[in-house]
């Protein structure tokens, strides 16, 4: 850490800078709002970032632009507000006049019991600020994927959103953008931040070197990215974590370098920051990103965190493995890279040493003759954890399959390649359907999935086999009729 250490976090609210130098490192933004500030407009519905009742909006400078994004305050730690502007439902109405989003919600009868309403208003406020015009019905549904409403059935909320966002954004937050931008720029000073002491702290390193140094000094500290999983350890597991090192303000750590052959994603890049770049590799990857969590989760959660966390499902891991991605790790000054599939050792266990952290992912683009398909299968389309996540990359030379990389999530203790199926496809012909049968049969040898609350083992096995078949049918171009319920490939290809 630098000598010029700041001992308080600073963030903006209602045009004022709030400075906090004493708080529990595991304090959530929601508890701070409700219990310390007595601002009870923001609600707790689930305390796990799934219902969105606690949604607030955070403004940050990104690439020289002020960006407003919704966040789940129930699992966001107070320290993560450093350098940002916080806007809650209490802040929208002004001098007795409702914000356009609020007025539309009233006019369209968008609330019934009203408990989810503050969160919905804030998600729509973010859409109002950031949504590309014209705001479509699909964009509204995406904006609302992280907000559960149990009363209305959503129709009036969707109508309210379309109404409120029909024109260009023109509220007092837009009018104040330049001033807000300037105020946040003042907070963008380069010093490291440490609130607390050596036994209990929330640390905010501002450089990769400072991060590496902190990790070495505190191998027992929890490295925190978006807190979309760690937050649950606190709210549900009641884990007694006292030391956090937050990656959110490490300079350059969120960089995304779009090279000719590969995209290098800094481990601090959020899903929303990586969304468009990854979608450019293939429409299926874009669709996986669209369905990944919710806007709130994508705004906080990072691509690096999704990998480092080692979920056995982790929607991106199977996609990246199929694409041949590598992960870059750093410990102290030492950096190493390894194929992503080798990073996952066993259930919730990764090849990561104490004090070592994921610093980047390198995701190859598709080369000539390569075809990619990814399928996310879950009980609900939006904001659901996959029962099975399958990704396939085939390399074709004419109609001969010269290479196959097939990876699944939800089929084993880690995201895992289908070695048998890959081998069976090597050298086979894409246009010779009977030649696929060995690969399809191999899937049941490659995986022995488990039964849990999302699906049974037999469903997972059947679906994995069928997804491989579907990928082959699509790549071969021999389908009779549709193969998808959501025609996003056609839409995106048409858009190009």
């Amino acid at each position, binding site marked *: 850490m630098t000598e010029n250490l700041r001992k308080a976090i600073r963030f903006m609210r209602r045009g004022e800078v709030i400075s906090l130098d004493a708080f529990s490192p595991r304090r959530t933004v929601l508890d701070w709002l409700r219990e310390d500030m007595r601002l009870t407009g923001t609600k707790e519905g689930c305390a796990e970032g799934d219902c969105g009742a606690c949604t607030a909006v955070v403004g940050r400078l990104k690439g020289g632009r002020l960006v407003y994004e919704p966040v789940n305050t129930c699992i966001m730690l107070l320290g993560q507000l450093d350098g940002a502007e916080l806007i809650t439902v209490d802040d929208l109405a002004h001098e007795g006049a409702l914000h356009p989003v609020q007025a539309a919600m009233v006019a369209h009868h968008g609330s019934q019991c009203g*408990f989810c309403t503050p969160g919905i208003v804030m998600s729509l406020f973010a859409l109002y600020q950031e949504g590309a015009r014209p705001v479509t019905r699909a964009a509204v549904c995406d904006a609302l994927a992280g907000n559960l409403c149990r009363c209305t059935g959503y129709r009036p909320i969707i109508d309210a959103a379309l109404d409120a966002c029909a024109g260009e954004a023109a509220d007092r937050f837009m009018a104040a953008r330049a001033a807000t931008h300037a105020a946040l720029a003042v907070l963008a000073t380069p010093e490291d931040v440490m609130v607390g002491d050596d036994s209990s702290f929330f640390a905010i390193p501002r450089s990769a070197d400072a991060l590496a140094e902190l990790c070495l000094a505190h191998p027992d500290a929890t490295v925190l990215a978006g807190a979309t999983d760690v937050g649950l350890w606190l709210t549900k597991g009641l884990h007694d974590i006292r030391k956090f090192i937050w990656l959110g303000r490490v300079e350059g750590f969120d960089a995304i370098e779009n090279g000719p052959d590969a995209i290098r994603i800094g481990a601090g890049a959020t899903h929303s920051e990586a969304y468009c770049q990854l979608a450019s590799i293939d429409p299926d990857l874009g669709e996986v990103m669209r369905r990944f969590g919710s806007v709130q989760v994508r705004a906080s959660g990072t691509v690096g965190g999704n990998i480092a966390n080692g979920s056995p499902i982790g929607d991106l891991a199977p996609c990246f493995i199929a694409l041949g991605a590598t992960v870059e790790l750093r410990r102290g000054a030492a950096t190493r890279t390894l194929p992503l599939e080798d990073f996952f050792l066993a259930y919730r266990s990764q090849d990561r040493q104490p004090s070592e952290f994921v610093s980047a992912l390198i995701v190859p683009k598709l080369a000539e003759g390569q075809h990619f398909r990814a399928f996310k299968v879950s009980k*609900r389309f939006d904001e659901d954890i996959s029962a099975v996540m399958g990704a396939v990359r085939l390399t074709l030379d004419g109609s001969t399959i010269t290479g196959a990389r097939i990876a699944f999530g939800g089929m084993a203790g880690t995201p895992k390649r289908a070695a048998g199926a890959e081998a069976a496809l090597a050298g086979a012909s894409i246009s010779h359907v009977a030649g696929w049968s060995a690969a399809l049969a191999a899937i049941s040898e490659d995986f022995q999935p488990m039964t849990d*609350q999302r699906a049974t083992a037999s469903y997972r096995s059947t679906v994995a086999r069928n997804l491989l078949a579907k990928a082959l049918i699509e790549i071969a171009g021999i389908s009779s009729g549709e193969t998808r319920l959501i025609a996003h490939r056609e839409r995106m290809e048409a858009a190009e």
Partner: protein
Amino acid sequence: MSVVRTIPGSPPEPLRHVHQPLAHDSATRHVQGGAAYIDDLREPEGMLHIACGLSPVARGTLRGMNLDAVRSHPGVVAVFTAADVPGSNDVSPSVGGDPMFAEERVLFHSQVLFAVAATTRDAARRAARLARLEIEAETPSVTVEQAAERQETVLPDYAFARGDIEATLTASPRRIDGSFRIGGQEHFYLEGQAALAIPKEDGELLVHSSTQHPTEVQHVVAKVLGLPDALVICEVRRMGGGFGGKESQATQWAAIAALAAHKLKRPCKIRLDRDDDFATTGKRHDMRCDYRIGFDEAGRIQAYDVDYLARCGYSADLSQGVVDRAMFHSDSSYWLPVTRINTRRLLTNTVSNTAFRGFGGPQGMLMAERMIDEIAWALGRDPLDVRYANLYRDGEDITPYGQKVSELDTMHALLAMLEKTSDYRRRRDEVTAFNASSRFIKRGLALTPVKFGISFTLKQLNQAGALVHVYQDGSIQLNHGGTEMGQGLYQKVAQVVAEEFGVAIERVRITATTTDKVPNTGPTAASSGTDLNARAALNAAQAIKARMADYAASLWNCPAAAIRFRDDRVFHGNDSLGFGELANKAHLDRVHLSATGFYATPGITWDRARKHGNPFLYFSFGAACAEVEIDTLTGENRVRRVDILHDVGKSLNPAIDIGQIEGGFVQGMGWLTTEELVFDAKGKLLTHAPATYKIPVASDLPADFRVALYPNANRADVVYASKAVGEPPVMLANAVFCALADAVHALKPGARVPLDAPATPEAILRACEAVQGRAMGGER
């Protein structure tokens, strides 16, 4: 269509509020975060937070609890167990069997064993996990099969019958036997269970509870503490959703908070964590339905025999009424000439299943729609034609429980109208053509009816009270026994009262439901909130209005009948006084400007022992047409279009009623598609939070969603000819389920489709594989 009725004494002028799409009374507060729920109330000084210790075992004997570590955790002020309860340790709404804290027997996983009161919620939650428990575990009954094997029930078996079922089944030209599983449903009210108890002087208690039934909370709190009811007040301004989940099961939490507040003489609050809420509170009953159908070649039902095996959980709770209502709705809209409807109310070591919007009706009706689909598959006919062939009609209009179905004309006309407006026949052809050319994606279509009986089947619940005050300045305060859970009851009742006084709606101040203003109320349930409470409030308003009219008549020296209340003024011919002016004058002349109102539903004659009578005042009707598509490789599915036509009589507030219809439909759709409750073999609920239990999100709404009110007027004597709306729309979602089965059926026409509910992707894929003669195996 019948003539629109008017309530005697109601204003003859064009209506200003009633039938208008006014916003929810709290809408502008909702959108600003300014509507306060229990946890938003300013915490009183010295308030403690409560968390509960839960059983990690589903069935067994509690041999000991070492709570030393709980007590010594920093911040803990007190720990309470069954031994600390001064009165009765039972929070049951019915026949008992719901211990507030476990005694010797452990009855289900996550049963409350003890409660901790601490200075912070965090301290209470951490301490509650530190107990050392000694429980002698037994193998729990988790499924109805396990309960049946043990012969354990929460209530006796109960059946209705008409005719000779065995002989008729034997004589029927066609016969199908089968079994159909219908899943349960978690309420997932967005505001979890919560209560705040504040001790007052001399043992009095004020309990803020997120409850649909404040009177029961008052009563149970008094019983638990050994106090007279008169010492306990229960108040609720609003709930963040209820859906039946706070009808009986808000009580336990209020009683625990009250016990702690009473013992410690400090305010105490409890707010369940979402996981604990899922794990400890009851849900919609899941059922296994075993059926035998006899029918003829025309698709007409001759005999229907059904056995419902209901998973009731560890106690009776409201299972008598819930399972009875499944029986009452076993006919859906169909004439059952010979039938036997039998129920088993099985005791399982799981949460005590409870009221959930529809209260058993959805299960009974869904099974009836499965019966129709079975007949249609067997005969190769369009299911809609089989539905028509079996609809109640003149001469065939007596339900299995003996009530004559009223408004047959509405039932028939509504279905015919929807068939036309949804363009069902043309779309049937389109779906057939699509399926012929699509190998992997299949589409399905279904149009299903709703007929739902309105009234509580427990007679004493069909009563309501209200209290209305007119103040000297002409402002009006309104109170009644109904609770607001988002359904817009407060606003509807206020509209009726404002209309009666001829004043602006803003003049009527809606106040929180509280047992010290209106006592001895029933729960806000059974869709009856408006029918009962608006009528009680209307009676109160009319009493005050009559006194004001008499007084005004004395001022103008005219008959009271010549006085008119409108536009916030009181008229005699061209002379008028402001409403406030008259209120002030009347007060000075000592006219009583406050009144209670009371209403009891007439004509309800259900006799459960004789299995005969009229349990319902009237029926609400509706119908939905759903088009879906499924991916036969994964079981994933989409609802492409839904058309709904629904009967709310003459709507008191079309905006609120459409909100109830759409919201009820989507909630029903969730129940039948993505919402799956999974318990493990040890009785632990695995789907205990939104990460694992999936209710619909915005994108699940049908892309093409067309909802209309059927133009109608209630012929029963109900306020402004309106009809109840809360529950019936849930069953509109049966169309989605039947359409999904229809899509699977397209894979192999003529096959029976073994699709159980909920139709998750897995359930659909299993059904797809089964109709193609491939068993997936490895069922849960």
